[in-house]
């Protein structure tokens, strides 16, 4: 196994642990915003899509990259916006 892959695995496993730690603290009443918000974060594949489109090595890859970019952008932009819309609804008794 190469060094990059190993480092990647280290990063992956440690990030999973961090994820478990912080997310178990989110109360059930916020689970829907948690889901749509973390869902928006998975739109990070936008970074991968940008690299594919931008490099544009062949017309086929450019199209594949474009579709990936659109989908990832919908995921990220839509996800963060709808989460914001939901969270604005949560108000305390005092307003």
């Amino acid at each position, binding site marked *: 196994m190469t060094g990059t892959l190993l480092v990647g695995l280290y990063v992956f496993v440690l990030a999973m642990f961090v994820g478990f730690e*912080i997310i178990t603290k*989110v109360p059930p*009443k916020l689970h829907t915003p948690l889901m749509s918000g973390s869902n928006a*974060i998975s739109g990070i594949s936008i970074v991968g899509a940008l690299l594919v489109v931008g490099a544009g*090595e062949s017309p086929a890859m450019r199209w*594949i990259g474009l579709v990936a*970019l659109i989908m990832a952008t*919908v995921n990220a932009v839509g996800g963060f916006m709808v989460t914001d819309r939901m969270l604005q609804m949560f108000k305390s008794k005092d307003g």
Partner: protein
Amino acid sequence: MSISTVIAITYLVSAALFILGLKRLSHPETAPGGNRMAAVGMLLAVAATLLDEKILSFTWIVIGVLVGGLIGTVMARTVKMTAMPEMVAVFNGFGGAASGLVAVAEFLRISGSGETMAADAGVSIMAGTIIGTVTFSGSLIAFGKLQGSVTGNPVQNAGLRLLAIALGLGVLGAAGYLIMAEIDPRVYWGLVGAALILGVLFVIAIGGGDMPVVVALLNSYSGLAASAAGFVLGNNALIISGALVGASGLILTSIMCRAMNRSLSNVLFSAFGSATAAGSSADDGDKVATPIEAEDTAMILAYANQVVFVPGYGLAVAQAQHKIRELADLLTARGVSVRYCVHPVAGRMPGHMNVLLAEANVPYDQLCEPDDVNPDMENIDVTVVVGANDVVNPLARDDASSPIAGMPIIECDRAKSCIVIKRSLSAGYAGIDNPLFYKSNNRMFFGDAADALGRIAEEVKEL
């Protein structure tokens, strides 16, 4: 400092913002800021990527971002809160597909260039392709089931199960072949096709009522797909973010399973919800449910100290969120302490009912969980069950042979009194009778939820 160092450090900042943002989601006060923090992290990651020297042309990037941003904005602005599960399912699918396509592009690049594929790159590409594809087709079916265009019944039989196993083995075999033996695009497209069908079979086998678990699980997959794409590109930002989402989806999946006291494999493979009402035993005639009318209900509620509403998804179906909040406001104004106890499986995705109540301006400090209410149940004067059934069924606690045995419930039967607002005495999703309806401390208010709550509120005003 070289450009690539700047990019790498910006990714690290993005990852830190994602983690801090998620951490802030643990309280309604800090949550909006947390979400925006994560959005800023995403923006930084995108900006950093644009500095990458591999990016030669920006025309297509601008097109993609504009189109995607527009679609995302319109969807986020217009979606109804009741349709959130559908929306999350679609977004999961898009995220999975985007990650999968990144893996596809890398495969095409390698196969086109005539390079050999290193084993570790091969494993990452195959994992990214498979997880992304399964997430995509599975999410589309989940969307269809939630929205009603695909049957809510579990579609499952021995033949389909065999097909799924064969396809699963085929996918693994093809991946192994591509990594170890030879880069053959035809084998690769076969793998993509098989993975698409696998995603369909996986979700279509599950009943509509169990979709919340599936959506949570697919949420986790969409994260893992992003991680896999990160391995493909050797990009730590993707690996970290994907892992965070993967962890979050897994936690929500396990919370939902625990709230139903069912294992994940039971949810995925048992075709639950296909059996038609096995309940309604022969001794139905002996049990008498005592009805109650609006005037008496209003009296009981208005002169209580502590009232707990137990809303189920039926409340949202009847569009009665605002009615219940109006009634609660009238009671609060009279000095009654009012809370809403929401079971984790109320609604169609984790936490869904809370969002619907928040939309109706219910203050979040009045929202609580079964564990907040159950220990103190004897001191609660009235519990009002609206549009919920299985989650208040005492059989889950008392009858070890019941299909819902061991499921955590809201123990309304232990309160001083209980009022169930419901059209009839019919069974819930699990298809079993509910003894709560016939208890001496329970009254049945027969009728439509919105109408009933409105009439009760009118009576409270008269007092």
